[in-house]
């Protein structure tokens, strides 16, 4: 299923050519661009998927996917800022969402259909998730300045949480917790699948985090407040010995 989603994702129509890291979608679309204007299939520039085969018959999804052979061979790992690449780039700023410019290049205009002011609000919300010292420091000072500058900055602190062996990461707001215990309790409920074959003992897991210097540390050594000010992302590791 995931591979099918990726295939679908690669074929997203956009108004400007997709620029994915390490892959130029145009390579696969050359056929479409060269087709004469008067013919049936949609032209790439009008933002549509090469649709000739879609038009002729009603097709089930399996059939349809089978008609895009080039894409089925496309390796999974090259899709769009893949999560795995994060770990290789120690200390490099890697926003969890694309910054605005990339977004415009990589996503369909006006999709999903959310009004622009909500999108702006989401950007403000997410700006505080980005790694880097600046945001954390700003957050505290912005806190006090808020009544005069009125930037309306969000005071939530969303960080990504991953667990080895679990495909999908989660995001949590660290502002909601006041201690490591509260955090770990919450994480346990969030990642039940990872615990299938292990007993319900917290000691079997290690919570690690990446700090603002890019280093991976074991959570729990520093006071909670210090931790929240420097954490950028979390990862749960299983202690094989535990």
């Amino acid at each position, binding site marked *: 299923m995931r591979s099918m989603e990726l295939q679908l994702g690669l074929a997203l129509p956009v108004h400007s050519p997709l620029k994915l890291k390490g892959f130029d979608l145009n390579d696969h679309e050359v056929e479409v661009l060269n087709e004469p204007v008067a013919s049936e299939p949609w032209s790439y520039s009008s933002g549509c998927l090469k649709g000739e085969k879609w038009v002729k018959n009603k097709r089930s999804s399996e059939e349809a996917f089978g008609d895009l052979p080039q894409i089925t061979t496309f390796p999974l790992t090259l899709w769009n800022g893949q999560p795995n690449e994060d770990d290789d780039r120690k200390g490099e700023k890697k926003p969890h969402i694309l910054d605005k410019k990339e977004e415009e290049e990589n996503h369909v205009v006006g999709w*999903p259909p959310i009004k622009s002011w909500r999108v702006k609000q989401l950007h403000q919300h997410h700006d505080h998730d980005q790694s880097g010292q600046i945001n954390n420091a700003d957050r505290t000072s912005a806190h006090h300045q808020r009544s005069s500058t009125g930037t309306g900055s969000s005071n939530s602190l969303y960080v990504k949480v991953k667990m080895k062996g679990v495909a*999908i990461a989660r995001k949590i707001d660290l502002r909601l917790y006041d201690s490591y215990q509260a955090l770990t309790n919450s994480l346990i409920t969030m990642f039940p699948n990872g615990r299938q074959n292990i007993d319900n003992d917290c000691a079997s897991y290690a919570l690690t985090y990446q700090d603002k210097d890019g280093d991976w540390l074991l959570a729990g050594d520093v006071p909670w407040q210090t931790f929240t000010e420097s954490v950028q992302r979390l990862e749960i590791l299983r202690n094989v010995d535990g």
Partner: protein
Amino acid sequence: MDPERKKVLERVAVSTFPDEVLERVLVQLKSHKDRSSVSLVCHSWYDAERFSRTHVFIANCYSVTPEIVSRRFPNIRSVSLKGKPRFSDFNLVPPKWGADIRSWLVMFAAKYPFLEELRLKRMTVTDESLEFLALSCPNFKGLSLLSCDGFSTDGLAAIATHCKNLTELDIQENDLNDKSGSWLSCFPENFSSLEVLNFANLSNDVNFEALERLVSRCKSLKVLKVNRNITLEQLPRLLIHAPLLTELGTGSFLQEHPACQYSELENAFNKCMNLNTLSGLSEVTALSLPALYPTCANLTFLNLSCAALQSGELAKLLVHCPCLRRLWVLDTVEDKGLEAVGSNCPLLEELRVFPTDPFDEDTFHGVTESGFIAVSYGCRRLSYVLYFCRQMTNAAVETIVQNCPDFTHFRLCIMNPWQPDYQTNEPMDKAFCAVVKTCTRLQRLAVSGLLTDLTFEYIGKYAKNLETLSVAFAGSSDWGMQCVLGGCPKLRKLEIRDCPFGNAALLSGLDKYESMRSLWMSGCKVTMNGCRLLAKEMPRLNVEVIKVDGSNESQADKVYVYRSVAGPRRDAPPFVLTL
């Protein structure tokens, strides 16, 4: 009685019914649909209706000219106008497309100097226009701007300065140039008539003392929605001056200094026992939320779409809101939060779930089909849903509509285009078939996911009351759109993007478009020739093509077709071709 004699008597009866009496009766009619029907009865009723009408609603500003409106309705006090096609909300319409209020204002100044209310949606409004309005209509009372653009806070300053009798200033979701908050300070010190003030979407600070004074002077204030810059500490100072409030939009709900203000806040909320609508609550946390509990008993509309609540927090809050009819949330509440909705809100009629991460596909942070199902079991009266999710199944939707057959508005957005049922890998046709078959009252439908022409066959066949249909990334061929145009007798608005529908589909609706308000097709397979043919066959339709840079000559990138008695637009920009 002899039928001939009966007819003669009836005719006499109608013609001797005095117009003045008829007008007195008709003044009571508010619904514009009723008024439309009345005006079609006979000439004298047409005249009586047009003289007695005080409010006119123009759903498409280009369907009629200001002159025609003023000639027909001489006594208008209130005007509502809608401009751009709805997809302009999602950046599909280039800037400077049109829908400028200016020409209307010139008419108002001349023909409706006693104009009291103006409600605009998706129109372009400049600061000069706002000032012109304020100066031309001395009795002006109510301004509502929703999704408009072209103005700045200077325009608001003009309204505040000159409109001595203003009762309503409602500025929502606009694309305005927010220069500063000083407009609020332009209300004169003796000004006290305001009943509705909504500036929630503005981002600059207003002078808090000026706001506080304004609120305390306006004894009839019923609706107050402030922006995020107003802090939780400042809020009680406003609330104590506005005991009559029925609708409140708070600013930031973040507690900066925990213990001290809590009691002040609680007291303030304890006084607000008339609140039925609550919104804002940005940056709300588990700590500040309980302050709301006393005020929630009578809440019917809770808008949490700016508040990133987690499931547990929502659950605790909803226990206090048994009377809720409308709920808007962010998908941070997740399925668990929606289960709490199902458990606590049996009277719920409307649910909207907005995404917090629409562009980030790799974190799972949202709602699924389970949450929707849970709500449907608990809230059997659900009639309006807007649901953004990343996965859905046919079986889930079938269950949902079985539980809630009274849907009038069903807007499902599966955020990844062409996504099939994630369990069976089938298209989502069965889901929407269930919706249209079961929900006989359905008026508005938005479809998503992988859909073949079958979905549209069902829609055409079963959706007898459907008025608005939104389609994106769906369908297999022209046949799909043809089915919709061939069925759906009440269809008024059809908006389509990125679907494989071409000229054959477009032209199959020849007979239908005059009974519809408008058709939008973008990213489809329609060509310029197809549009020209449509324009030629149907002279009373305006067929407009928006050309996009870099597209080829024969493709019609974005097509907007609408009925009009005004003829072709005279103010079309160069990228809009009227055929």
